[in-house]
């Protein structure tokens, strides 16, 4: 695993925007309430926010970014770098960051790029934007992390549809020589790339008539080759071993222990898996916030969304040390520790 520290960079604000539309899992439009009762019980996902047909990932990231820029009183002309982390980009090409550079009115001197990572994406995104800002030439950067998972799950797949939600987030970083170095530990195991996959639509398997055909895979799972496929057992097996190992690795590298950390913000996979991870690490439960019941699993967006939704008061009024750990699709994982002081956190927006 790659462990390293990035100096001179500070996270100064986080915001989030979610769809107005709520889908309740106990009153599900397609699946029976009996089945969904046990689903809610094990996953902890009571309801989720789902985009309208006309809304895309950039719409939620845009609103989150506008709110944060305003709350920080930043001049848009000062923003030197924009990174968008998403697996549900607006288009196959061009990158969503280019669309947002224009829509947000950022200067054309702003460098913009997408990182198509999922559950580990927030930590990877921070590592990338921090490494670039750390050099001192670029001063201010925006990391926009969001998904419209509802667009890629089959509406007839009980293993994915009721779990995933949509959201957009924005995180603001500045070059600051007085900032404490941010420690990271990142890793990849592509041997598990089929554990979470959308088989068709890339250059390996084109979208054709056959790929569009919905097929019953098992009871409660009907999907086509353009739908997100998740092998829950493989992902679980990976998550409960790799996430705790990665957290331990970073704590050792940064010479810290669990007591030194105020909050542990894990990727919100599902309650069953997250509970196992937390139990294994013996972290006091009060240090582990969850937003699963309200927003479900929003892949790359879960960590910033959970900070905004659950730690709003703590991070905006004091000094906090937060460990963030993302793990999943790739398979890919990453952990970092953020030193926060009076973070600017606007209220969650709904559109």
């Amino acid at each position, binding site marked *: 695993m790659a462990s390293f520290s990035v100096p001179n960079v500070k996270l100064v604000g986080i915001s989030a925007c979610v769809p107005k539309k709520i889908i309740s899992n106990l009153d599900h439009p397609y699946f029976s309430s009996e089945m969904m009762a046990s689903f809610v019980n094990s996953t902890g996902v009571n309801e989720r926010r789902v985009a309208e047909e006309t809304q895309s990932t950039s719409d939620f990231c845009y609103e989150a970014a506008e709110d944060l820029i305003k709350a920080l009183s930043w001049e848009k002309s000062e923003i030197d770098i924009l990174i968008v982390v998403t697996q549900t980009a607006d288009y196959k090409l061009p990158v969503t960051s280019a669309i947002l550079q224009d829509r947000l009115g950022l200067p054309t001197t702003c460098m913009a790029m997408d990182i198509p990572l999922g559950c580990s994406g927030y930590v990877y995104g921070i590592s990338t934007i921090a490494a670039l800002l750390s050099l001192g030439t670029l001063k201010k950067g925006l990391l926009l992390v969001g998904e419209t998972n509802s667009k890629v799950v089959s509406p007839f797949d009980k293993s994915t549809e009721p779990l995933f939600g949509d959201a957009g987030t924005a995180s603001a970083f500045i070059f600051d020589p007085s900032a404490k170095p941010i420690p990271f530990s990142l890793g990849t195991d592509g041997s598990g790339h089929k554990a979470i996959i959308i088989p068709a639509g890339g250059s390996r398997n084109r979208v054709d008539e056959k790929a569009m055909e919905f097929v019953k895979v098992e009871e409660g799972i009907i999907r086509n080759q353009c739908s997100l496929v998740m092998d829950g057992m493989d992902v679980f097996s990976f998550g*409960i071993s790799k996430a705790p190992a990665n957290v331990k690795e970073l704590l050792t590298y940064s010479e810290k222990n669990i007591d030194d950390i105020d909050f542990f913000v894990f990727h919100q996979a599902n309650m069953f898996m997250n509970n196992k991870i937390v139990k294994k690490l013996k972290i006091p439960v009060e240090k582990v916030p969850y937003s699963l019941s309200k927003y479900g699993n929003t892949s790359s967006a879960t960590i910033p969304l959970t900070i905004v939704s659950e730690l709003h008061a703590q991070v905006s009024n004091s000094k906090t040390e937060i460990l963030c750990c993302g793990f999943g699709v790739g398979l890919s994982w990453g952990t970092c520790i953020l030193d926060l002081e009076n973070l600017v956190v606007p209220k969650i927006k709904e559109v």
Partner: protein
Amino acid sequence: MEINEFVRNFSDQLDDTDVSTVTADTKFRDIEEWDSLTSLSIIAMVDEEYGAKLTGEDFRQSETINDLFNLVKSRTN
């Protein structure tokens, strides 16, 4: 690692089954309460008790508790 202990650890993951009916030769998919969540509990138990990994493919290729035992055994020292 021995089979009786594995069967006991396996049975501990079941809520509504008479554990005296569960043996090494039990076909786990025939257990009435068996569902995807039970398989996740078995994966977690194997991770905790034996430090080994079981995958979705392992379950699909296995029929009895003994089949799973042999897989776990081959992955522990």
